[in-house]
């Protein structure tokens, strides 16, 4: 292990690559565990609402389309989510994942932060307001 005085080190730094980056042009790959935007797949979801019940930010809602055939739509509020990952741990059917790629989540309008997941016709029905919007577990929304 070579040790340098600060002067030597500073002189060497002059010829080293900068530690900072010109961000949008250069970027470091994200680690695979990075907690980015939440994703939900309807396959296997039982509607147990364990994810939404313990979400500290009330950021995910499971909207029931048809209870008996287990058809649900998930409404995700990316602006409220604090990316804690509790919902992913809670879901026993691996319906929830957090994408390590999607972390640049800025948007110009608020609508971009409300994301619907589920089968397209179901989502459409929710958007058109045919389904009662409040889910049992989330009285605040």
């Amino acid at each position, binding site marked *: 292990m070579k040790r340098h005085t600060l002067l030597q080190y500073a002189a060497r730094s002059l010829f080293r690559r900068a530690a900072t980056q010109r961000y949008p042009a250069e970027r470091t790959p994200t680690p695979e565990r*990075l907690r980015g935007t939440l994703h939900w797949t309807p396959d296997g979801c039982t509607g147990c609402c364990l994810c939404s019940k313990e979400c*500290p930010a009330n950021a995910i809602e499971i909207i029931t389309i048809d209870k008996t055939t287990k058809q649900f739509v998930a409404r995700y509020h990316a602006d409220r989510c604090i990316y804690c990952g509790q919902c992913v741990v809670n879901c026993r059917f691996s319906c929830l994942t957090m994408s390590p790629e999607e972390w640049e989540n800025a948007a110009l309008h608020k609508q971009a932060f409300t994301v619907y997941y589920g089968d397209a016709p179901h989502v459409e029905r929710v958007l058109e307001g045919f389904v009662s919007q409040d889910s049992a577990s989330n009285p605040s929304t």
Partner: protein
Amino acid sequence: MDTTVPQRFVVPIGPQHPALKEPGHFEFTVDGEQVTGASVRLGYAHRGIEKATEGRNWVQNLYLLERICGICSHVHATAYCLGVEKLAGVTPPPRAQAIRVLVAELERIHSHLLWLGVAAHEAGFDTLFMYSWRDRETVMDILEALTGNRVNYSANLLGGVKFDLTSELTDKIYKGLELLEERTYQYVDVVTSDATLLQRTRGVGVTTREQAEQLGLVGPTARASGVERDIRVEAPYAAYPDFPVKVVTATAGDLEARFVVRLQELFEAYRLIRAVLEKLPPGELQARMPRKIKPAETVSRVEAPRGELFYFIKSNGTDQPERIKVRTPTLCNLASVCVLAVGSQLADVPMILAGVDPCFSCNDRMVTVYSGDTDHTQWTWKQLRQYGIDYYRR
């Protein structure tokens, strides 16, 4: 202007001031460059978190409390988890406890390096500031790869932890530690030998052992004055009984000693992390937790990077806590600034302030003093807003 009465010249530092990264308010009465009086006012970043916990369930509170502090978030979550687990009578598996210690020590490294940078910046030593923050990226990257986030790692769960170690991660940590260790030697060298920096730190803000005990200092600030105070040793928690800590102390009590103690603690953290990685116990990551906890109360203490962090938790048989009380280390240390600042140079005040590694928003609290004659009507939002407008229009 009446010139016969000596004018009090007050230099305010805060609530908005470049020396403070968070809002706090200090008023220093100066005579030329000499400080003759000091007072502190807190509460600018009061967020009402303690009250907010009472309306959330045990799991949700974990994440709320983790956000008390952005720098030492993991210790808050750990203190809370340990307390709640004690209440519920759950023992988390040993592997989980070891990983908690691992993350806690990584966090200590990041916090101390951050402090080194801030303190160097206060001393006007920007190159040291840039270097230490650059090297801090190493440990931030490790934490990000390990837990998936750079701050607020949320590695804890009630009853265990979320993340396991993989062999790649272990390699990454070893590699990172090697780099950091080499750099830390240089930092120790700089803070103990750089003439200009020593002019600003040696003999400045000296806290004697007696003073440290009287003022109730905690953490590295106390240890720099020779007080052996470390929860990891006095009341080992999590996996610390299996991975004993050697307390680092210094005797001088000045700013240089605080630099040295924090840097030596880095070496101790490197050693601990290596020990944990070598002897990581196998097994589960999480024990089952009940949703509701029978009425009981407990305290939980952990050693945050800044000193002792104290939690009082009271349950009432539901899935929500009855009361949670948090005391952060900064609250214990902050009073010493007012004592030390008096008699020192104005230029040294930011250094003395930085020397305790203050963290304002996590310690901010509201105290209501009821005395008989004040009327304490509640203001509505509208009144408050109008008051603000009138105040600034003046």
